[in-house]
């Protein structure tokens, strides 16, 4: 599908998780002919890297993340959204006409923009964590778990993502050790129980990872007890980091208001940012709930806010 780069569009949506696609469905049905930048390699957002999604309402038996996103995508297409499998690399959002540049060098102009870029994995922040990424260090169990068959690996984190990753990894690993810096998990009860009941999962509480050891692949982790300060070392051939996410607001920081962690700020319960005609939704904004369904809900709100803005101007 070719986008007309000569005209000024009504709405461009940046991002393609549940927030972006839901915004696309509503905007398309409002006949705004939205152009959606899905991302060249990240189309579908965070759910592309998960397996069963059991808590998105409407699916009695759950649904695979990529399948759910595929259905949302097709729904957006059905109503006339124009999907572009490319990235936005630059945005100029102030002024009446917003100007965005994509990864192929095209410039697209629009009267309104919905920001739905979502979030990225948080890293522990160790040099060796970055150095050994893809060589034993991973942030995505479903992506890389396959390669850790019969190995002893560690998962860092204490929330639902960490529990999900740990459970999933027991399909391949011989042992998974969950390393959490606090005494108690913050995961939902059902996820915590599931992990605790899994015979292949062990827990190391009050522990943090202070270094990742290994020449060209992970061989061990250096640990510190967060209560006593005592350091130790344990052999692992894999480290999965599941400590949360950070909003992907790098492209818009300094233009739209963001809080100290980089989350885009919106007015009250709307999706309006401080810039006229610019709306934000999904994990880019939400640091409290961060669920697929809340993202989808906010995507709908963004489309409706954008429609009202466009009609009023």
């Amino acid at each position, binding site marked *: 599908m070719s986008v007309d780069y000569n005209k000024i569009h009504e709405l461009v949506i940046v991002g393609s998780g549940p927030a972006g696609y839901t915004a696309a469905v509503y905007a398309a049905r409002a006949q705004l002919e939205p152009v959606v930048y899905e991302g*060249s*390699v990240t189309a579908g957002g965070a759910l*592309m890297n998960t397996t069963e999604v059991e808590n998105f309402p409407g699916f009695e038996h759950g649904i695979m993340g990529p399948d759910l996103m595929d259905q949302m995508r097709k729904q957006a297409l059905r109503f006339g959204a124009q999907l572009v499998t490319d990235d936005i690399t630059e945005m100029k959002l102030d002024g009446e006409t917003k100007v965005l540049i994509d*990864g192929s060098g095209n410039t697209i102009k629009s009267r309104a923009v919905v920001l739905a870029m979502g979030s990225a994995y948080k890293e522990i922040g160790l040099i060796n964590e970055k150095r050994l*990424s893809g060589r034993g260090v*991973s942030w995505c169990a479903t*992506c*890389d778990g396959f*390669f850790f068959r019969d190995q002893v690996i560690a998962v860092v984190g204490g929330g639902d993502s960490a529990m999900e990753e740990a459970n999933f990894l027991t399909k391949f690993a011989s042992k998974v050790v969950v390393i959490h810096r606090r005494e108690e998990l913050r995961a939902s009860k059902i996820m915590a129980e599931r992990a605790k009941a899994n015979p292949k999962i062990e827990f190391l509480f009050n522990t943090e990872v202070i270094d990742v050891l290994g020449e060209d*692949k992970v061989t061990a982790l250096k640990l510190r007890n967060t209560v006593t300060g005592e350091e130790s070392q344990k052999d692992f051939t894999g480290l999965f980091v599941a400590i949360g996410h950070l909003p992907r607001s790098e492209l818009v920081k300094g233009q739209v208001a963001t809080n100290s962690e980089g989350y885009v700020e919106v007015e009250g319960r709307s999706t309006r940012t401080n810039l006229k005609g610019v709306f934000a939704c999904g994990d880019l904004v939400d640091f409290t709930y961060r669920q697929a369904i809340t993202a989808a809900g906010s995507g709908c709100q963004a489309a409706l806010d954008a429609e009202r803005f466009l009609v009023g101007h």
Partner: protein
Amino acid sequence: MATEKVTAANFADVVLKSSTPVLVDFWAEWCGPCRAVGPILEEISNEHGEKIKIVKLNTDEEGSIAMKYGINSIPTMNVFVGGEVVKSIVGARPKPALLKELSDYIS
């Protein structure tokens, strides 16, 4: 030209003995980012195929080759020159970033 599939049977001939650089894309059906980068590699293959041969190796089917090259995460794209791995690109990248990584071989 389109990308080719490699297996254990033809790996030596197609990759190790190639006179031009070869990019081996280690991928699997269940890997989302692998599927996302697939069309990008097809485009690069069509545009620069004479300078760098792009081949695909399915890690589910050819586990021993994947293990031999220490593949720990997919997609991993290894560039072979003269039978040796000279560059390893781990993780999906957008087309401009991939072209930059391969600039030594396609300019």
